[in-house]
């Protein structure tokens, strides 16, 4: 039985990994930037492997500020979709999830993004029926020294079963 304590660990993992992969695979832009997600239980970390096409200033070379913003927006959207479908997924209800829509996005650039892999973790600070707030931290070599932070508001998709 799905979600039960005696469910084999293999089946738990594959169910969760498949749900996350389905969420990510549906968005062409995530593939374009090469973003991947690392999952530990319900915690996910976004990974942006370095690539030449992500460079803004070739002299330094530094990540394009727009790439940093996009990476953080992607990790916020996936965290929000992932955490809001978690209970359904654990209960074995598989519903194709419409993604939340960004209302506004605010990035603080703390230091230059270097020519290496970047990581991001998003935290949903408020999750309502219609609106959600999310904060994101992105770092590279040193978790304690984020190179960018962001906060954003999202419009949640209407649930198919919302109307009676």
């Amino acid at each position, binding site marked *: 039985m799905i979600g039960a304590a005696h469910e084999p660990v293999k089946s738990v993992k594959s169910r969760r990994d498949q749900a996350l992969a389905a969420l990510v695979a549906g968005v062409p832009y995530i593939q374009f930037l090469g973003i991947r997600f690392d999952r530990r239980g319900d915690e996910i970390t976004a990974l942006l492997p370095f690539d030449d096409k992500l*460079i803004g*200033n070739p002299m330094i070379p530094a990540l*394009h500020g*727009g790439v940093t*913003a996009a990476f953080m927006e992607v990790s916020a959207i996936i965290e929000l979709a992932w955490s809001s479908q978690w209970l359904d997924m654990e209960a074995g209800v598989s519903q194709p999830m419409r*993604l939340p829509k960004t209302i506004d996005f605010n990035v603080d650039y703390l230091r230059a993004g270097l020519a290496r892999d970047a990581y991001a973790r998003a935290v949903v600070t408020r999750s309502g029926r219609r609106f959600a707030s999310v904060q994101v931290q992105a770092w590279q070599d040193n978790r304690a020294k984020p190179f960018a932070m962001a906060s954003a508001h999202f419009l949640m998709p209407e649930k198919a079963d919302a109307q009676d």
Partner: protein
Amino acid sequence: MESQTLRNARQFIAALPHAQALAMDLVELGSGFATVTMPWDARLVGDPATGVLHGGAVSALMDTASGAAVMCHPAAPMSTATLGLRVDYMRPATTGQPITARAVCHHVTRNVAFVRVTATDADETRPVAMGTGTFTLDRPAP
């Protein structure tokens, strides 16, 4: 007639690998303002159900236009970097249409440049997104 400045700036943007990856093109440049376009591209779609571009791609375009506007401010900065960028997404961009970002560097201090930027698709009366940014300003040595 295309000015030398526009040609130089256009080459500068074409040299930015990420601007190149998104096929951005600088179409207009003036004293403290810049207009940059980006074609619709299936690889940049955020919502496959509708074909709407991902907000992140629009942000990248707005950031590029904003940086270009700072670079051509009369203060003649040596270089610039984004300090903060806030973007409001007002409506989904229409599928298949290019996006145009118009950025104005409306104020500079000794160290900081302030920018307003608007993104539109073919319907220029209804912006897709609007943003405000703050940028570092490295002035030439006196």
